[in-house]
């Protein structure tokens, strides 16, 4: 072997330089670029658009909130300090502090807005959970809860900037709606004292190919078509994506970078509104 120390070091240096350039030739880069967004490469991200005007109507909000409570055996606890809500109403000035100012009319400022878990793209609640009881589902973007693992530390409640999580201070069962036989109205598991709960976008219904309960319920309300729109935001053809592309929409506290997936329709363009009426 005639290899000198010099040859060896030169070869080593050349290999190192070539190695640094390797990422440029990563074949998957081109693969990713050639696949259009919204097709095979992108997983589903469920999202919802809530019509701000329509959700000012009592019957619309009531339909959503009642359907959710029945579907998931969410207890109706009278004490406001111990309330448990998956979807509920807040005043616009608290939901969108940046959309009101000192001259905003009181009716607008205090207009009720439906709020729920935003199923964030970067959920802070998931980051702080010490047991992995809440996590972001990669296949469909739902921020899920595993009640078996929740130890009730409530870090997630502190981390969530939307206040979307509720804690069970006591056994919720006495406050769960019952049917004529005294059983909970739904066979969905109730929760127990000491765990945190929130909206799951009706993961159990989505699995069965159905819409979330609130979206289905609001369809039955006369004149409330389009109050809630649900769909895959990574699919450009979904009703949600259409609304986001063509209408004026907002989301809560976007500047925090959590990437909320619940959007609010501020106004429909006249053309789209006419089309909506025709449909």
């Amino acid at each position: 072997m005639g290899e000198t120390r010099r040859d060896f070091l030169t070869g080593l240096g050349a290999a190192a330089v070539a190695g640094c350039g390797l990422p440029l030739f990563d074949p998957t880069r081109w693969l990713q670029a050639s696949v259009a967004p919204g097709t095979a490469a992108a997983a589903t991200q469920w999202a919802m658009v809530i019509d701000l005007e329509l959700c000012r109507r009592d019957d619309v909000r009531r339909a959503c909130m009642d359907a959710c409570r029945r579907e998931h055996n969410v207890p109706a606890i009278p004490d406001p300090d111990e309330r448990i809500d998956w979807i509920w109403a807040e005043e616009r000035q608290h939901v969108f502090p940046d959309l009101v100012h000192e001259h905003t009319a009181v009716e607008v400022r205090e207009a009720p807005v439906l709020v729920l878990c935003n199923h964030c793209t970067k959920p802070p609640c998931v980051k702080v959970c010490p047991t992995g009881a809440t996590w972001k589902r990669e296949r469909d973007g739902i921020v899920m809860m595993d009640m078996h693992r929740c130890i009730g530390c409530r870090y997630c409640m502190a981390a969530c900037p939307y206040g979307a999580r509720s804690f069970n201070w006591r056994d919720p069962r006495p406050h769960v709606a019952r049917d004529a036989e005294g059983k909970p109205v739904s066979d969905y598991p109730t929760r127990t004292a000491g765990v945190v709960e929130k909206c799951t976008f009706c993961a159990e219904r989505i699995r069965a190919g159905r819409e979330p309960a609130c979206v289905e319920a609001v369809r039955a309300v006369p004149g409330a078509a389009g109050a809630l729109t649900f769909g895959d935001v990574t699919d450009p053809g979904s009703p949600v994506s259409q609304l986001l592309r063509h209408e004026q929409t907002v989301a809560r506290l976007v500047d925090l970078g959590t990437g909320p997936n619940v959007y609010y329709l501020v106004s429909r363009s006249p053309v789209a509104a006419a089309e909506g009426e025709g449909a």
Partner: protein
Amino acid sequence: MRDRTGIVLGLGAFLALAAFPVWHALGSDAERARPELERAVEGPACVEDTLFMTAHHQEVLNAWRTAVVRTGERTYVSTSGVEHEMSLTGTCMRCHADSQGFCERCHDYAGVTTRCWNCHVAPEGS
């Protein structure tokens, strides 16, 4: 050696006390006190054989729970190759419809507290 009697008596008393769980169980017809459980109401067979389920049902349920809640898998293939939906209330309790007469009666006997029904809606018996 004048303490011998006392020592032997004391030692005997100690051993008798320490062995209390053993002779108490022997003398109390524990075998015959074994609870009579409610039979499964329908279905050809359990997901696994009875002996295995008696000993390992808790492990099966834990594995099912993790699979369903965390990974979203819902189909269990038994050792005999039969497919079942992994569901406590949908699969187990469809046959063992009486949670009080089946689950609780045996767990009371064994001194084990179950927490399943704190959340899951239990069938009320048939």
